[in-house]
């Protein structure tokens, strides 16, 4: 790497106590657009994150994750190495073209009444108590039942889907190798589930989401049964924890900004804006990982082929150079955040996530006044996908 003219900050991003929303990180961002870390470089400012996220000189950086953890075969390995997240070039584009139409915003819009009914049903169950455990009572069942609605499976099966998704999610943790048997069993169970769904929709195609995937074709090309199965597992894997965590973080953000919660209660049409502001200032995906495909120089920095580049989302979304008033503001006009990643690997399911969260938040705001923490909250570390795993809150029932 070139000789730095200023002191380049160093961040230990694997340290369990590493905090994204900290003085340390703000100081680093003020001093430099990037930091060195124990594992590649971290990009801290908005403009640089925006450019590098979409740079053709970088590819998605997680393809080698199983190998880095000593996992070189098995069901998870085979699924991971063929899933859309890690595919590149035409292999990626072909699958993406076939999957995209089912995720069209026009089709997702039809599900909005179901999202609203679901949110109200969940709120009804705890509102009279004046308190709830927000993750257990709302965020997790909401995120998972949205998936069952999308997949067209009975909503009553959500606990099983939630359990399987969380178990497969262990593969992204530092204890992946130790949890491997559990992960493998969960992938096998999800495969059985997916195969049954695919077979059923192939025999009885309808207008639903899975039917659209089964029927998707382009220039005579279709998804194979294996590709369909892979995609359905990706949807469950990528769609559940992320939405659950993001809803938990949304509640945290609004507890810190009560006047914004009151505003949202008054003006439910700000639901979509609320999602964008929460994800800009308090995203669950704290960084997006890329890897240099070739040697190149960006600004003053030489980046060698193979270098891992972490693009920090919250840090870029609150960068004072791009956001003079970086605080959450539902009435503000802000540049887009990168909480859904970006470039060719931009989150496939973002229209679903945006639609379901932008219905949930205003309904919660209209019915739960003055939410506050009552103690006992538990949190995931800031490294990777963060959020509360337990969030007991009190509130005043409204209406």
């Amino acid at each position, binding site marked *: 790497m070139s000789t730095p003219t200023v002191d380049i900050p160093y961040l230990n991003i694997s340290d369990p106590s590493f905090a994204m929303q900290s003085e340390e990180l703000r100081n680093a961002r003020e001093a430099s657009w990037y930091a060195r870390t124990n594992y590649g470089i971290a990009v801290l400012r908005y403009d640089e994150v925006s*450019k590098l996220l*979409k740079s053709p000189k970088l590819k998605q950086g997680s393809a080698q994750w199983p190998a880095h953890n000593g996992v070189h075969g098995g069901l998870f390995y085979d699924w991971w190495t063929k899933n859309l997240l890690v595919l590149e070039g035409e292999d990626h*584009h072909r699958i993406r073209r076939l999957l*995209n139409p089912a995720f*069209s*915003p026009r089709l997702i819009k039809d599900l909005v009444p179901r999202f609203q009914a679901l949110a109200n049903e969940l709120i009804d169950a705890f509102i009279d108590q004046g308190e709830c455990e927000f993750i257990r009572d709302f965020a997790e069942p909401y995120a998972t039942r949205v998936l069952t609605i999308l997949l067209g499976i009975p909503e009553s099966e959500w606990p099983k889907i939630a359990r399987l998704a969380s178990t497969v999610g262990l593969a992204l943790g530092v204890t992946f190798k130790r949890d491997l048997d559990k992960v493998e069993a969960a992938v096998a169970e999800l495969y059985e589930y997916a195969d049954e769904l695919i077979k059923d929709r192939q025999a009885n195609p309808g207008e639903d989401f899975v039917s659209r995937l089964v029927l998707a074709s382009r220039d005579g090309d279709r998804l194979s049964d294996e590709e369909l199965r892979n995609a359905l597992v990706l949807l469950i894997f990528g769609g559940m924890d992320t939405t659950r965590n993001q809803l938990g973080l949304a509640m945290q953000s609004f507890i810190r900004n009560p006047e914004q919660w009151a505003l949202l209660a008054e003006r439910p049409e700000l639901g979509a804006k609320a999602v964008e502001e929460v994800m800009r200032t308090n995203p669950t995906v704290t960084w997006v990982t890329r890897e240099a495909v070739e040697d190149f120089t960006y600004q003053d920095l030489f980046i060698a082929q193979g270098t891992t580049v972490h693009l920090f989302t919250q840090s870029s979304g609150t960068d004072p150079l791009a956001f003079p008033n970086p605080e959450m503001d539902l009435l503000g006009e802000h540049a*887009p955040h990168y909480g859904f990643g*970006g*470039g*060719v690997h931009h989150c496939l399911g973002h229209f679903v996530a945006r639609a379901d969260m932008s219905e949930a938040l205003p309904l919660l705001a209209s019915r739960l006044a003055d939410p506050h923490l009552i103690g006992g909250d538990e949190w995931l570390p800031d490294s990777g996908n963060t959020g509360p795993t337990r969030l007991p809150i009190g509130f005043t029932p409204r209406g």
Partner: protein
Amino acid sequence: MKTVDVDRSLCDNHGQCAIAAPEVFRMNPDGVLEYEPTFDDSLLDVVEEAIDVCPVQAIFLKD
């Protein structure tokens, strides 16, 4: 022939349109969108897919 327009104030150069409709949209070596505003009617389906898939919804059919 039909015409498509990209609102450059919204476009964030994610390049999803270039995946959906490479006949009309492409990313240059700097990662910036270039496109052919007029296209043959036979490409309408793929252009509509590009419009749908744009993460920031910056693409519009004209007339």
